[in-house]
């Protein structure tokens, strides 16, 4: 287990390293100059050069990259804005805030959004999927299957604005979604996120319904499930012990992928509802050519994806005794 973790974490670090390089190169491919943004009204070549110097943009790209890596690992107190302990992504060009602090600041929003939605879609999606598989061929199954088919084809960028238009702008039943810290005001936290949760989990729940149903049905056709029935185990027991156990693998896989990418920032959801999470931060960093922030978000998102990959692979070992971690 330990060897597995070490090996996977090393792999993840290598991938993150490559990703940071790609992002770096990508950023310098952008024709937009962040200095123009900070330059203010009296912008002239001198002041641009000055800003370049302050930001270190006048150094060769390789050196800048080296500095970036160095700061990331070791921290730095070279920044004019103040000290920057590791992991140091530097200070945002746009807000002059520490990038790591900004990430941590935005993370609760994304985590609230993701966890809340994940709880909903996991229970509703899997519940409906299992019910459909249990009652396969009945009206319940057909309704659930058809419904899930249609709902999973919906897009947040349609459903989200539609919900906003109906519930917020037309009827005024709800406030526009907003994020309040759960520690500050749990009620506001809940009401502020309810629409995003519902919308996000509706679409995901439909996908999980489809997935749970089809993987349960697949499992129910497994011979070992039939064996269990043949030895007189009840339908319910076989369904929830034998078939469910086998269905867990694809479900956990997809759930890990989904959680990983959602924790890295649910871009369209956050954008649609104007929630100040990592996804919106990412969009912002691109619009502002804010390299430190972009690198920070990019690496953070990728770390989440990789972390959940590792968690999923480790989870396999708990689900399936045939899997050995190495």
């Amino acid at each position, binding site marked *: 287990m330990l060897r597995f973790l070490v090996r996977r974490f090393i792999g993840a670090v290598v991938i993150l390293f490559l990703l940071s390089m790609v992002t770096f190169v990508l950023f310098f491919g952008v024709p937009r100059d962040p200095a123009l943004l900070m330059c203010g009204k009296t*912008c002239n070549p001198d*002041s641009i050069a000055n800003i370049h110097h302050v930001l270190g943009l006048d150094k060769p790209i390789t050196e800048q990259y080296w500095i970036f890596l160095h700061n990331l690992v070791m921290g730095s107190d070279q920044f004019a804005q103040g000290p920057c302990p590791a992991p140091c992504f530097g200070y945002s060009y746009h807000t002059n805030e520490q990038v790591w602090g900004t990430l941590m600041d935005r993370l609760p929003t994304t985590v609230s959004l993701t966890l809340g939605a994940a709880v909903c879609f996991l229970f509703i999606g899997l519940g409906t999927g299992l019910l459909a598989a249990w009652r396969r061929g009945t009206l319940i199954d057909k309704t659930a299957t058809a419904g899930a088919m249609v709902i999973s084809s919906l897009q947040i960028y349609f459903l989200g604005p539609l919900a906003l238009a109906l519930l917020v702008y037309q009827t005024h039943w709800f406030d526009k979604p907003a994020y309040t810290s759960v520690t500050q005001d749990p009620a506001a936290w809940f009401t502020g996120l309810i629409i995003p949760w519902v919308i996000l989990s509706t679409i995901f729940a439909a996908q999980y319904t489809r997935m749970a149903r089809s993987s349960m049905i697949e499992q129910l056709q497994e011979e070992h499930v039939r064996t269990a029935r043949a030895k007189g185990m009840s339908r319910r027991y076989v369904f929830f012990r034998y078939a469910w156990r086998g269905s867990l693998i694809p479900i956990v896989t997809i759930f890990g992928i989904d959680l990983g990418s959602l924790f890295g920032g649910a871009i369209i959801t956050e954008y649609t509802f104007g929630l100040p999470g990592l996804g919106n931060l990412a969009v*912002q960093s691109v619009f502002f050519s804010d390299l430190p922030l972009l690198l920070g978000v990019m690496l953070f998102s990728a770390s989440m994806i990789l972390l959940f990959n590792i968690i999923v692979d480790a989870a396999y070992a708990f689900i399936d005794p045939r899997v050995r971690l190495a």
Partner: protein
Amino acid sequence: MSRGGRHAYGALSVLAAGALVLTGCSKGGSDSGTNGKKDQQDAKRQQALIKFGSAADSTGPAAPVPGAKSGGAMEVLQRDSYAHLDPGQIYVSDMMSVAQLLHRGLTGYKATSDNGHQHEVVGDLATDSGTTTDGGKTWKYTLKDGIKFDDGTPITSEDIRHTFERLFAPFINQGPTYIQQWLANTPGAAYRKLLPDGPYKGKHLPDSVLQTPDAKTIVFHFKTPHPDLPYALAMAGYSAVSEKGDTKEKYDKNPVTSGPYKIQSFKSGKSMVLVKNTNWDPKTDPIRHQYVDQFNITFNQQFETSTKALLADSGADRSGISFNNQVDAGNLSKVLADPKMKSRTVSGYQPYVGQMNVNMSHPAMKDKTVREAIAYALPITPFVRAYGGTDAMEVAGGLISPTVSGYNPSFDPWGKKKKPAGDPEKAKALLKKAGKLGMKLTFGYINTPEGQQYSTAMAAGLAKAGFNVQRQEIPAETYYDQVSKLNNNYDIFHTAWGADWPSALTVIPPLYDGRVIADGAQNYSQVNDPKINSEIDRIGKITDPVKSAAEWEKLDEYIVQDSVNVVPTGDYKQTQIAGSKVGGLVYDDVIGGVDPRRLFIK
């Protein structure tokens, strides 16, 4: 308040502030045409009435606000967090609003009426609005007694010297540059050569430029007359900075204040708490009040959120307000139509005027008939639509905003107020006459949702008049940089400009003086008309603000009607609301929004 340096920012904060598209100021529903007239009347009353106050006018304390009470905490809902609190970096309206509570300069605007329309420039830290004996070349200011920073140290002429000298340091790059340029007598950013490192390496401005003969006296020496110095000094960007407390870059997050309030806590992007500055002496301040005990500012409040909270008027929001958030487009017509909301609603013009620049450096644009054809053909309706209809944008006739002295509401040479969608027939006839039917017209537009929307429709309107319009998108964050390049490709492009103070001096000379054409300068249309240049020189020397305002308006009419290097598009408007317990709610034309200094809790 120039839109030059700021506009890129403004456009971007729309882009960035969370719900990128959602925050766009679009508005539906029916129009309420009556408000426009009232606003114009309000603005008209304000024209040309700003005078430079005497020592008597400059004596504190400020006249009490009728019915005002002391005490209580006010909730302030703001969309954007304050990026800068260092006075030298303040040039954006929301920071300028809060700066009214925090920072004091040598001069300031004293409201002489309770409706926010009438002002005079008075001495703030200084005993009067300034004295000049040589037509504006030398200005002398004397500091009042008993003025202190929030840490208790008295404000001396050394602090004022430091305030100005640090503006030359490289890290100060966001604020206004008028006085620096005047002191160095150079255009653009060349002033920095005068004191490249600021005061931080032991060098100072020579006495021939800035003189502080004693602890109370400051003398500005300019090579050319600058009668507008009292206006300029009133900008938040020239507020006093403590020499002792100057932490350079870090000052931007935690400045030493001199106004009635000081910063108790500031969490960027989240919240800010202002409490009373006990070292502020009302007897020294003719402008500000200190009724409210505490301002609790919350950031990231979108227009819809703040409007909804303030409309709901419950709990803490009853004493809630927003210094800068407007009523969101969706609620605007509702708020304006609701008689119950009247007492809680203020609206007025922003100092910005939109204008379509015609690039005079392009040979094809040198033909005046072509420019006239553009002026006739250009539809203004797309612009009004993109910003939310007539409640938020009004078709402009001239270049001078209703908030600036000299505004003439009846001036409308191209018939835009009657035919806001343009007059393609007339334009086509002119184009035919010029023999340029089907000529190529490159239209650079800002790549924001609004820019995309109005530019396509404007292009369609111009095409109807026989132009072959080529739209070219320009990224929002570098838009102003690109259009202010001398060799840009764009035949026409839209910019907006706001006066930094209510004098056309901050509109016409920076935008239309042919001698300041340079890369990055704001003469976007690159017009170089000898008559405009000479008029600028002549009017710039007039020391009577009332007289000069009339002359500026005449020049405005010449530019729009005869030079035709620019087509005015729209005057920006806004509406703000507050909770029912908020007293002293006034839309201040100079601030361009709610006046935070007069607020109290009922």
